[in-house]
């Protein structure tokens, strides 16, 4: 690729737009955000991903100014934002509930923020028209929010938060109410908007596929902490913990003990099962507990024992999950360990190679899996 990659987090010269410095947020004696330090850079599309109640909305509300950190500071463009009230921040938030003003028309909803800035009538009209066009809402300008569909309302909320061209836009589960097709359309729309306006986005989502599609970086959260923040590809291919590996996509975790071999670690995980081999950058001591995480699509499934791979296990098919373009096989090994393998469905169903109870061989290369400490 000749294109320069967008990775400001690897550039020591780059100035972050947002800096969280040892930020803790407590509600009473409950800690919602636990001593977090991280940066978000200009023009990023930063996705917060995590289970319900892990503190994603709290993070957003602190940026928007509706909650103050209990400890630590948040800097926006180098400035501490603690003393700045929400109406003075160059930050706009799109609420999960949309929070459209029911007594105002779509046009007036979008113009609301612009009017507060004391812009001229013509300027406001031009900007609103631009936003309506961008979100394909021109035909609905004169309707009230209760007269349009859920997806349209979601786009009004988006247009309203975009209208002021904020430095930073916070989207709290913006696509939650949309069907798969509209969701995908809107995701691409968002990325388009982001490219044309250069706004920095922070997006909260429950949907990992969405995070993978739109984000420049994904932050996986657990219990008030960011466990890993990295590009979607690295989060998927190089999770830093079993939690992240398990949270993003499908994975098989095989727990055993590591022993340094020649070039790769040898992992023994169960009585009577062959040793597995895995290359790893992380250091393990001999006999240390380890977890081999392996994605199902990297596991081949064959009827005969493959001759070219060291990692080969025999088992019987327990379950087949048919996903349309793919099938995931759940294969049970002799000790009860289940390993998932995925194949592309290039043939019609009736001519499928394997079926329930079949004895099969699973195999993968030394670099396919990743060794994790915990």
């Amino acid at each position, binding site marked *: 690729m000749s294109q320069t990659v967008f990775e400001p987090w690897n550039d020591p010269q780059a100035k972050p737009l947002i800096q969280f410095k040892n930020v803790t947020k407590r509600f009473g004696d409950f800690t919602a955000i636990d001593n977090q330090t991280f940066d978000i850079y200009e023009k990023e599309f930063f996705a917060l991903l995590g289970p319900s109640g892990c503190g994603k909305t709290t993070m957003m509300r602190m940026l928007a100014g509706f909650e103050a950190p209990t400890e630590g500071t948040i800097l926006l463009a180098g400035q501490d934002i603690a003393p700045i*009230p929400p109406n003075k921040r160059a930050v706009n938030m799109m609420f999960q509930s949309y929070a459209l003003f029911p*007594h105002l028309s779509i046009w007036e909803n979008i113009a609301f923020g612009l009017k*507060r800035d004391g812009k001229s009538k013509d300027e406001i009209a031009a900007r609103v028209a631009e936003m309506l066009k961008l979100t394909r809402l021109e035909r609905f300008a004169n309707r009230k929010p209760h007269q349009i569909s859920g997806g349209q309302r979601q786009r009004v909320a988006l247009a309203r938060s975009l209208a002021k061209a904020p430095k930073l836009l916070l989207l709290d589960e913006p696509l939650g109410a949309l069907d798969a097709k509209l969701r995908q359309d809107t995701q691409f729309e968002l990325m388009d908007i982001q490219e044309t306006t250069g706004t920095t986005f922070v997006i909260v989502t429950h949907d990992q596929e969405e995070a993978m599609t739109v984000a420049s970086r994904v932050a996986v959260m657990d219990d008030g902490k960011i466990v890993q923040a990295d590009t979607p590809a690295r989060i998927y291919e190089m999770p830093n913990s079993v939690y992240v590996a398990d949270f993003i996509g499908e994975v098989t975790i095989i727990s055993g003990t590591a022993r340094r071999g020649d070039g790769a670690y040898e992992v023994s995980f169960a009585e009577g099962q062959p040793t597995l081999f895995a290359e790893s950058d992380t250091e393990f001591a001999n006999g240390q507990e380890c977890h081999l995480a392996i994605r199902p699509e990297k596991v081949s499934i064959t009827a005969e024992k493959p001759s070219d791979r060291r990692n080969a296990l025999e088992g019987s098919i327990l379950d087949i999950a048919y996903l349309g373009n793919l099938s995931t096989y759940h294969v049970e090994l002799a000790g009860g360990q289940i390993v998932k393998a995925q194949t592309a469905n290039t043939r019609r169903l009736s001519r499928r190679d394997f079926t329930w109870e079949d004895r099969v061989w699973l195999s993968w290369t030394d670099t396919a899996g990743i060794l994790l400490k915990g």
Partner: protein
Amino acid sequence: MRRLTGFNVISLTLGFAFLYLPMIILITYSFNSSKLVTVWAGFSTKWYGELLQNEAFLDAAWVTVQVAVVSSTIATVLGTMAALVLVRAGRFPGRTLFSGMIYAPLVMPEVITGLSLLLLFIGIGLDRGIFTIILAHTTFSMCFVSVVVSSRLMTFDESLEEAALDLGCSSFQAFRLVTLPIIAPAVISGWLLAFTLSLDDLVIASFTAGPSSTTLPIKIWSSIRLGVSPEINALSTIMIAIVAVGVITASLITKRASLRQQADERAAVRA
């Protein structure tokens, strides 16, 4: 489909007769051409004409309207503010006491309210007149406004106000541009309620009125002691009309607002 049985028709008629017969008689006799209240002598609107000539009644009517408009307006402002604090401020020390104290006048006997206000006005040396009636009416109608408005505020989505702040409003602008227009139906019905309460109050007004400021209810009350005149009937008919319009408008506004809210909620569920 359920049908009205004979029994139902009879109970309905009896019930309504019980409620409205006195008023119907009053309204009918206000159009009586005879000076004798109980003898029907043909239809006439002359008592309404006479009423317009009666300076004392007109003065009293003017006082009543002034008192009702001013006191219900002040009560609406104060009642809405109290409702905002009660619903929004969350827990603060003394909240239960505060809300109890706001709602107490609802159940307080009017005689007590009137008497205590009278004692207060005498105590601070305030001359009784139109001003003291306004103060008194504001005091007791404010809690009605507060009840109406706070029940609306309970279901108000606070993220709307946050959104307004987020888009650059000051807190006051957010209230004026977002919260107030949305809760306006409740505020208006609160105002109408306060207005009609003030219009027909006799007890508290008689405690707090001075010689120079007689309200209509006081005037009517004192003149029927000299005998019921057809003029009084005419006057009462007009008051019934005003109160009826007020109450009907208030309930229509509330009904429309709640229908609208239901429609919004249905739309939100479909989304």
